[in-house]
């Protein structure tokens, strides 16, 4: 095996697979395959990347964009969007926001805002790391992050996002 040991690979799997899958879902339906392929590419590297997590996010992002272009979105987007939304987050009653509402709100964001939010909130990447992945500046990334959070606040504020209010609000 190359310099990327199994322990490190396992840690990366445990830490980043959910966020990477969520990131890939923003572009394509075959998010799991894209994430798998990214880990295979990482395992095949002769030298471990300087920042394996950022490397994975970049590879998954590029792979998901390519996969999304290959998919026929016009025919499958509407039918698969609902299926995608239901598996974006684990359903938990303890969360402050309804998982499906959050997924629907994330779906409505632009891809630039969504990828920044996913990478920072669930991936734990810094703005500078995200800037390198998306080939932009850290300030631009932060602006997208703020605008994305603002949009989510507005979207989540229109519906009944909290689980506490679910009982009182009529479901769709």
């Amino acid at each position, binding site marked *: 095996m190359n310099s990327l040991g199994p322990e490190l*690979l396992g840690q990366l799997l445990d830490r980043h697979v959910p966020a990477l899958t969520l990131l890939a879902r923003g572009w394509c339906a075959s998010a799991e395959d894209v994430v798998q392929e990214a880990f295979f590419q990482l*395992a*095949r590297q002769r030298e471990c990347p300087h920042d394996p997590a950022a490397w994975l996010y970049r590879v998954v992002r590029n792979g998901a964009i390519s996969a999304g272009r290959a998919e026929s979105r016009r025919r499958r987007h509407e039918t698969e969007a609902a299926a995608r939304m239901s598996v974006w*987050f*684990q359903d938990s009653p303890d969360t402050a926001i309804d998982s499906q509402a959050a997924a629907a709100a994330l779906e409505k964001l632009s891809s630039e805002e969504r990828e920044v939010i996913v990478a920072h909130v669930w991936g734990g990447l810094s703005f500078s790391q995200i800037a390198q992945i998306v080939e932009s500046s850290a300030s631009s990334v932060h602006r997208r992050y703020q605008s994305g*959070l603002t949009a989510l606040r507005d979207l989540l504020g229109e519906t009944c996002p909290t689980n506490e209010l679910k009982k009182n609000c009529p479901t769709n």
Partner: protein
Amino acid sequence: MSDERTEEKLPDELKAVETALRGLTPATGAVDRDRLMYLAGRASVLADEPSSVSGATGGLSTRAGRDTASTAGRASSGTQRLARISRFAWPLATAALVLLSLTLSGRLLYISGRSERILVVQKASQRDELPVATASVVGFQSAPSGGFSYMQLRNAVLNRGVDALPAQAVSHPASAPNTNAPHWPSLRDDLLGS
């Protein structure tokens, strides 16, 4: 550090949204951790055969549970060695052809730089030499039938005197092909009256 400073600039309401979002756990979907570790390990061993691994895993669906990478994992060490060598085949071939091109170009320039001069050396005219057979001895007074032979004779006499005349022409006038041509000695004697 710069990220911490930027996060401090977030309004409280956005911080609340961020905190709420962090409470959600992304679903892993159908990604099987143990299976992914196994396949990644095999992929690292088969790093020299990317086509077989990608072909095995490109369409792999964890939900279907197909383990097509197992067939690709049976490569022997010899095959791996050959695969490693073949990776350098094209670069080596390119380098060899470039070297050959440079060598031939240099040789071409070197050869063209050395201009070959072909000198045409004409045989030395025999103006200063008297033909041995003196077949063309001509008379003193009469114009020679061939000006060239007259000039030869004149030059020879001017350079070496009368004695330069071949004795054969004098002693054997009958051997001269042109018996009608006058001989110098007899002409001399006639003129000088000796």
